[in-house]
């Protein structure tokens, strides 16, 4: 297996992008990544597109084929990868394996989703289609609903409180306000969402015990990477970052069939595999992008990947250990909570964010000083399909 480097990254600002089609967004992010890689007019061998919902939301299929045509990348191999909210991570994995195996040398990985052109009612239903059709979906369960049930269990078992959840929401929105690519560029005041009587209106219950500001927004957006073998890089314009490890694991589709529904086994396994492959341990990681579709998930994932003991993640967030300058800064992009969650784009965007961190090219308000190793967790379903990537800065 060859070491695989990320030589180009690109992203467009996430949010509501009424003026762009899904293909526009995928194309813009791809061109940014190709330019960042310095490829000029050079082609790529293959293109992997992570997308969950174009068939449902845009009534458009085979978008990878459309993208290579639009970008004049013919006759590159092209595939769309659908794996729920882990579609982006799965696209990265496919690109990684294709280059690592020696089959392809230059691969473009893109993730994108256009969710805001349908009503919230429809978007919520679209995301819920990943639940079990007979045992869950028919009841009207939503992903915030599953997260609400999970949060209640986590609160009872580990003593998590709204204070812990608010600490995550405030940190991530503070970072989002500093990120020009973020969907929600607005810092929160504790008074506005929790302390004042107006917080009932500002921050209503979405799926109790979760409130509006515990959840990520519904976003449009796209992100892209260019991968190549590390051995082919001679005089890099930017410090190369390698994908030193990856892992992927699955769990039961329904929460009710898990022996302990608070145990996110797939997160633990995926992270362990990624650490083992990279020959690193959780304490070697300097910055992480975790899948905080809901504030509780950042806390739970920070424990399941091994940054904190079970039951300690909430306290760590409250004590500032996950902030810039803390022991393990998490979601310095703002995370899904503020950067946004165009589902198919997220797994790719997380890798883009970590590459920026490891290249040391972010403004100091978001840059983790001298970061060498980073981790991403892309969480599909409700933890039933999870991808982890460990990235490492390389000095040539």
């Amino acid at each position, binding site marked *: 297996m060859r070491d695989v480097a990320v030589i180009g990254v690109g992203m467009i600002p996430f949010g509501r992008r009424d003026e762009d089609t899904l293909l526009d967004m995928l194309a813009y992010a791809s061109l940014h990544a190709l330019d960042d890689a310095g490829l000029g007019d050079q082609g790529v061998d293959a293109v992997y597109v992570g997308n969950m919902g174009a068939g449902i939301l845009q009534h458009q299929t085979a978008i990878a084929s459309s993208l290579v045509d639009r970008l004049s990348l013919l006759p590159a191999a092209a595939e769309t990868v659908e794996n729920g909210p882990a579609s982006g991570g799965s696209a990265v994995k496919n690109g990684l394996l294709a280059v690592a195996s020696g089959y392809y040398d230059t691969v473009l990985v893109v993730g994108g989703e256009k969710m805001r052109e349908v009503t919230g009612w*429809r978007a919520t239903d679209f995301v819920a289609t990943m639940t079990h059709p007979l*045992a869950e979906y028919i*009841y*009207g369960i939503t992903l915030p609903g599953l997260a609400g*049930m999970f949060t*209640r269990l986590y609160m009872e078992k580990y003593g998590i409180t709204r204070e812990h959840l608010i600490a995550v929401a405030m940190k991530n929105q503070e970072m989002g306000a500093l990120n020009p690519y973020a969907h929600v560029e607005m810092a929160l005041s504790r008074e506005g969402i929790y302390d004042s009587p107006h917080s009932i209106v500002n921050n209503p219950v979405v799926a109790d015990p979760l409130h509006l500001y515990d959840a990520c927004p519904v976003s449009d957006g796209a992100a892209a990477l260019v991968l190549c073998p590390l051995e082919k890089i001679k005089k890099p314009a930017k410090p190369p970052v390698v994908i030193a490890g990856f892992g992927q694991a699955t769990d039961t589709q329904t929460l009710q069939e898990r022996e302990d529904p608070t145990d996110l086994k797939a997160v633990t396994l995926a992270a362990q595999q990624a650490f083992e492959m990279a020959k690193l341990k959780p304490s070697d990681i300097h910055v992480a992008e975790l899948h905080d579709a809901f504030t509780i998930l950042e806390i739970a994932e920070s424990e399941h990947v091994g940054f904190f003991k079970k039951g300690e993640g909430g306290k760590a967030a409250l004590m500032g250990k996950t902030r810039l300058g803390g022991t393990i800064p998490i979601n310095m992009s703002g995370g899904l909570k503020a950067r946004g969650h165009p589902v198919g784009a997220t797994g790719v965007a997380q890798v883009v964010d970590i590459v920026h961190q490891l290249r040391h090219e972010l403004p100091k308000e978001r840059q983790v000083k001298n970061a060498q190793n980073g981790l991403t967790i892309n969480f599909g379903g409700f933890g039933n399909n999870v991808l982890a990537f460990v990235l490492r800065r390389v000095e040539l």
Partner: protein
Amino acid sequence: MKKPIGIVAYKCKKCGRLHYPWHDRCLACKNREFDPISPQGKARLLTFTRIYNLPWGFDQRYLTIGVVEFENGVRAMGQIDADENYPLKVGDWLQPSWDTVRVQYGENVYGLKLTPA
């Protein structure tokens, strides 16, 4: 007329693990043979949520959904018929029934309904 609960769970003939929904192989031992099991008795609430941002197909203000465990160990999700202010809590015993849980394309869809006992 009261409808029987339409849930069928599956008990592995080899190791006894209960499954719902259906799996072709046992999640514990990979065995492919199961005995069908019907949920029995009342249902104890394991967790729940009240959802206020509902998906397409639900034209109402909120929906209460929970996961319960029946007296014979079968676990399932269902809709809970409880007023917004009802002090529902984990561990409550609920009375199960089989009733309309949504209407899709003009057709009633039946599922597990739960009422505070």
